[in-house]
């Protein structure tokens, strides 16, 4: 298929339809409402359903219902609406149901603001729901990745029977870039023999449930889930690097911030600073090994985020605190420009005695 020009949000919606998602449940909120609008126009044409729920909570529970039946379902929102869905997300995990949840982040806490943000990092990677649980967290950085990682999210959700978060930001959601929907090869998927589909009495009935009467049964179920989590950590880490081979200072950034850092690294290089960039594409599982390996040669890391520095701890843990991890970021919907980041890299280079 030839390339088309799309907003990041539209690319998510079209990619979901391409991935065979037939059920989209949402509730409008800036800066992700284009997903709902696009779904409303396209879903009827492909025999699917786009439903504007009465609330975000209703939408996530509709996803739970649709997924129980073995179909691909998605919901999307932005930060405040994402918080509302958290109970349903935990129930999805507890029921071992695949689902794709899109968060096009805006400023917080509270209603915050409509400008871009990455301040839901902790929420997405550490504790989106109650209980012993993880979610796979994917962080697209281009409109192309909004499409390809949406497809990947559906596949990962089905393979590991887990909800997957697409953690985008308002900037990637709103900006327009060319996108090619044929760029991704779908993965081999397991049969959904657990789904509560009608079967005419041909088998034992399936039950979708997150309540366990006996503590031992719940413990066993959670432990089995953690075996899957270990497999995800071993096999599904994704990241990208730029000029890290000889880098003294390695930026760590995802989403729109990685695009800003890419330019900042080039600017710093022009001034003789050996800067590089590692871009986690999966935020959980985090690219611990890749960062740890970079710590063998890099002298320092710089985490760059649209938040107060929520990823810093993960970078410190990844490198075993062997190198200093500095932070540069803006929050509240303010976006730093590449020159701001380059200036920070220059200051670090001076502190580390890397420049004459």
């Amino acid at each position, binding site marked *: 298929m030839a*390339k088309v*020009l799309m907003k990041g949000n539209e690319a998510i919606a079209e990619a979901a339809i391409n991935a065979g998602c037939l059920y989209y449940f949402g509730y409008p909120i*800036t800066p992700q409402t284009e997903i709902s609008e696009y779904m409303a126009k396209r879903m009827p044409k492909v025999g699917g359903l786009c439903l504007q729920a009465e609330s975000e909570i209703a939408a996530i529970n509709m996803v739970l219902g649709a997924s129980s039946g073995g179909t691909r379902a998605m919901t999307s929102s932005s930060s405040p609406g994402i918080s509302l869905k958290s109970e349903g997300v935990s129930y999805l995990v507890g029921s071992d149901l695949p689902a794709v949840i899109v968060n096009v982040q805006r400023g917080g806490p509270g209603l915050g603001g409509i*400008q871009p943000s990455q301040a839901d990092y902790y929420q997405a990677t550490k504790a989106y729901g109650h209980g012993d649980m993880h979610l796979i967290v994917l962080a697209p950085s281009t409109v192309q990745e909004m499409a390809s990682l949406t497809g990947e999210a559906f596949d990962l959700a089905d393979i590991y029977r887990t909800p997957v978060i697409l953690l985008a930001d308002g900037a990637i959601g709103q900006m*327009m*870039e060319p996108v090619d929907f044929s760029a991704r090869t779908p993965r081999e998927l397991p049969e959904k023999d657990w789904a509560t589909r009608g079967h005419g009495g041909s088998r034992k009935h399936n039950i979708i449930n997150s309540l366990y009467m006996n503590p031992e049964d719940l413990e066993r179920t959670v432990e089995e889930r953690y075996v899957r989590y270990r497999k995800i950590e071993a096999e599904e880490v994704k990241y990208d690097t730029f000029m890290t081979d000889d880098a003294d200072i390695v930026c760590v950034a995802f989403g729109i911030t990685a695009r800003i850092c890419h330019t900042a690294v080039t600017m710093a290089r022009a001034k003789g600073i050996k800067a590089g960039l590692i871009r986690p594409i999966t935020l959980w599982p985090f690219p611990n090994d890749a960062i740890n390996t970079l710590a063998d040669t890099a002298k320092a890391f710089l985490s760059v985020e649209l938040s107060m520095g929520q990823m810093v701890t993960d970078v410190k843990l990844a490198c075993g605190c062997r190198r200093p991890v500095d932070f540069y970021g803006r929050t509240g919907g303010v976006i730093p420009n590449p020159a701001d980041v380059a200036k920070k890299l220059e200051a670090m280079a001076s502190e580390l005695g890397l420049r004459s």
Partner: protein
Amino acid sequence: MAKRIIIVAGHYGAGKTNVAVALAHAHKDDAGGCVLCDLDTVNPYFRAADNAAELNAAGVRTVIPAYANTNVDIPVLPAEIASVFCSDETVIFDVGGDDGASALGVYAADIERAGYEMLAVVNMYRPLIADPADAVAGMREIEQYSRLRFTGIVNNSNLGAETTKRHIEASAEYAERVAALAGLPIVYTTVVGEENAPESVPAGEILVMKNSTKQLF
């Protein structure tokens, strides 16, 4: 001197703001001056308000919604818009995409009284209007929302930063189909940078534009 109102409308993300900003620059030396009026109540980030400083420096007056580019999405249009109907300025209206054109409908009577041109910005690389029939169906909806009628087509077919001359040339047939289906003339074919201008266009003029979209990185 006849008052001139040029309305730039069309599908969401078709490139209306870039076209509106280019037209404002093209009309900045008009006898009565030029005003660009941002009527977009739909887009939270990328909008004509981003170009206000540059337009003002070029001598173009701008009328921008009060909350544009703030942290709230309150679609309030300023009372100042009324001023464009009692001046000699050439008025460029940058309208929100699709149903965002309902904001334009508020001023339909004033616009009708003054006389107007309403340009439909189309881009064959936007999937929901890639089929000329869909593009024209969308235009008809916008006419309903705005209570005004399109008078011409702007072929703004582009693939963003990846646009080449070949992409623009390949869109000529599409633009002709849209124009024929809508029963309207092609007024402009746009290019960003003169080097991308095709040798010839089926009808109308070539509008050379700058990329006026806010750059984040």
